């Protein structure tokens, strides 16, 4: 079997002591930032990107991926124990998880979250290993027109799945695409919007932009309503699940995994949407639906499985097509580029060690997280007692030095400061920053493919509908847009987000 030899190749990379070590560091850091509210995986990965320059590509990407899925685990711990979700993806876990903890079943809730996540992570990893190679081989035949349509579909889908106003999400994407045009035009070599600043000829640095928009801006928002956290947690006992518990979480875990895997692949989807959707679904389907909100174990099992599955499968479009579906994946694309790897369908054939190593490391990382998390819960909770007024200066310090070390230039520090103002102003006007970053990353690719396609067709825009593949991608985009705009669905969508 081909897949087994591939996984074997991956295992031989992922289980190298050095890669295991970096994977471990990633998981540990990820759990820590998952526990701490106010510091998310996007900002952390952006901060650490410059430090990974010196590492071999496999180790760097394994560590960064570990941060991402480690955060999913960490976020649920605090959600259950103190009703304080560390990540947006564990907001719904807090509803029933905290009630379980109040009923003295914190241990069972944490065990459910960990086991559900592990099961989902395993399934999603297998899915990734099975689905990625054929997807990539399809993508190898993509011309510029198909790529353009695919990216349009991705952007449309990310609008559809974003929370809040559709118009505003679209405006953010277009704004991001515009920011992506800053720098030297690839085709003609003409500098655009550079204002004679030499540093801008390479374009705005996306690490600096995302640290400003996600890292510093987050701090500004947090300082507005600064509150001291008071943490009182009882000792967690009774990690074992009863047979009755296993019977009850069996189907929610399976359904959560399936839904999460599906939603994770969609652009703009990923962990948060998956957890919300699966909680809403489980509430309808479960025979114990009335218990939801009062400490139903299903209400922990389903969203925790779904968010982990979604986190893993969101790697699929990034690894096979080179198209990131969420800001974290956008940063992973950036990390690959910094390591001299061009993300896209060629990665599987050109860098099999890296590709399969990363997949296997996701599974081993999940295993580490289960082993790591349950005994270390006390430590994570104690971390919460680090007050925010000591935490945020450190974050700002690391952001500054991180921005500086990208190109060893203070210009990127100024870019970061500038974009923290932009991000803050946008968030005051209730614009979501995530679509902006997606647009920013995809902008240059989108423009290049558009121009190439038009050149091939000699200015005839029908090239996008003449190829059946491109046509069907665009049709799906139109259908998605139509669905979201239709009144009945948009009402349902609102309900789903408020639930």
């Amino acid at each position, binding site marked *: 079997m081909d897949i087994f030899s591939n996984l074997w190749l991956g295992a031989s990379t992922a289980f190298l002591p050095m890669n295991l070590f970096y994977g471990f560091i990633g998981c540990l850091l990820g759990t820590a930032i998952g526990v701490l509210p106010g510091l998310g995986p996007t900002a952390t990965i952006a901060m650490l990107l410059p430090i990974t320059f010196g590492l071999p590509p496999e180790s760097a990407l394994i560590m960064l991926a570990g941060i991402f899925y480690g955060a999913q685990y960490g976020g649920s711990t605090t959600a259950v124990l103190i009703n304080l979700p560390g990540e947006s993806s564990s907001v719904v876990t807090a509803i029933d998880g905290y009630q379980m903890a109040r009923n003295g079943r914190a241990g069972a809730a944490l065990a459910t979250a960990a086991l559900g996540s592990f099961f989902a992570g395993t399934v999603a990893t297998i899915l990734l290993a099975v689905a990625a190679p054929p997807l990539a081989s399809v993508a190898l035949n993509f011309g510029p027109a198909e790529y353009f349509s695919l990216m349009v579909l991705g952007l449309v889908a990310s609008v559809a799945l974003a929370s809040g106003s559709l118009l505003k999400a679209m405006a953010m994407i277009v704004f991001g695409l515009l920011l992506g045009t800053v720098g030297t035009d690839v085709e003609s070599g003409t500098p655009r919007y550079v204002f004679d600043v030499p540093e801008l000829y390479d374009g705005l640095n996306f690490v600096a932009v995302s640290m400003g928009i996600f890292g510093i801006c987050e701090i500004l928002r947090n300082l507005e309503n600064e509150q001291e956290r008071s943490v009182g947690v009882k000792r967690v006992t009774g990690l074992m699940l009863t047979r009755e518990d296993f019977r009850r979480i069996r189907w929610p875990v399976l359904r959560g995994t399936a839904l999460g895997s599906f939603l994770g692949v969609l652009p703009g989807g990923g962990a948060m949407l998956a957890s919300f959707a699966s909680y809403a679904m489980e509430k309808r389907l479960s025979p114990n639906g009335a218990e939801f909100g009062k400490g139903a174990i299903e209400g922990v099992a389903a969203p925790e499985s779904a968010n982990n599955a979604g986190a893993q499968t969101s790697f699929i479009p990034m690894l096979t097509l080179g198209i990131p579906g969420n800001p974290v994946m956008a940063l992973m694309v950036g990390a690959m580029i910094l390591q001299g790897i061009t993300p896209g369908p060629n990665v599987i054939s050109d860098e099999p060690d890296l590709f399969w190593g990363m997949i296997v490391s996701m599974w081993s990382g999940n295993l580490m997280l289960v082993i790591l998390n349950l005994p270390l819960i006390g430590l994570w909770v104690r971390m919460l007692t680090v007050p*925010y007024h000591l935490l945020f200066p450190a974050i700002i310090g690391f952001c500054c030095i991180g921005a500086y070390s990208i190109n060893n230039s203070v210009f990127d520090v100024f870019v970061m400061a500038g974009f923290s103002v932009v991000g803050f102003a946008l968030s005051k006007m209730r614009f979501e920053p995530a679509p902006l970053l997606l647009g920013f990353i995809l902008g240059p690719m989108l423009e290049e493919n558009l121009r190439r396609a038009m050149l091939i067709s000699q200015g005839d825009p029908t090239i996008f509908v003449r190829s059946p593949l491109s046509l069907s991608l665009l049709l799906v985009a139109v259908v998605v847009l139509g669905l979201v705009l239709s009144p009945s669905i948009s009402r349902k969508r609102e309900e789903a987000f408020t639930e």
Partner: protein
Amino acid sequence: MLKIRNGRDFVGGATMILVGLLFIWFGRELEAGNSFQMGPGYFPTMLSLILMALGALIIGQSLVVEAEQDGPETWNWKAYGLVILAPIGFGLVLAGLGLAPTMFFLIVGVASASRYANWRHSILLGLFLAACCVLLFTKLLSLPVSAFGPWVPFVGGLS
């Protein structure tokens, strides 16, 4: 009589139109070309026009749809000022002062943005992080910045 029902969205839409106009203005010298041979100005101009259209739609919506009630906005100008100026100050003095003093002043300065800040904690944190950063970045990752820059008497420039 039209009335602004959602002030936040009205401002948001107007900002988007302004951004579109800015990109068109500063890109006015870029050659647009035609759809066959797109020049460097074609894509940005097209995007600016789309952004302005979206801004207009957002404004339109703000005149029709009532704003949802949410809590009053809180503003904390002191914190904004400190947190935004801190990286700029960092950039300005890094080459002169070197990493250690810059980091220390950054931390102590920015920590006062919090209403729970206390001087003793901030100074200790500043010293600790300055030491960590020098160790990690100049020693281990050999970033081209010295621990103490030429502005610092006696030890400056020695790294």
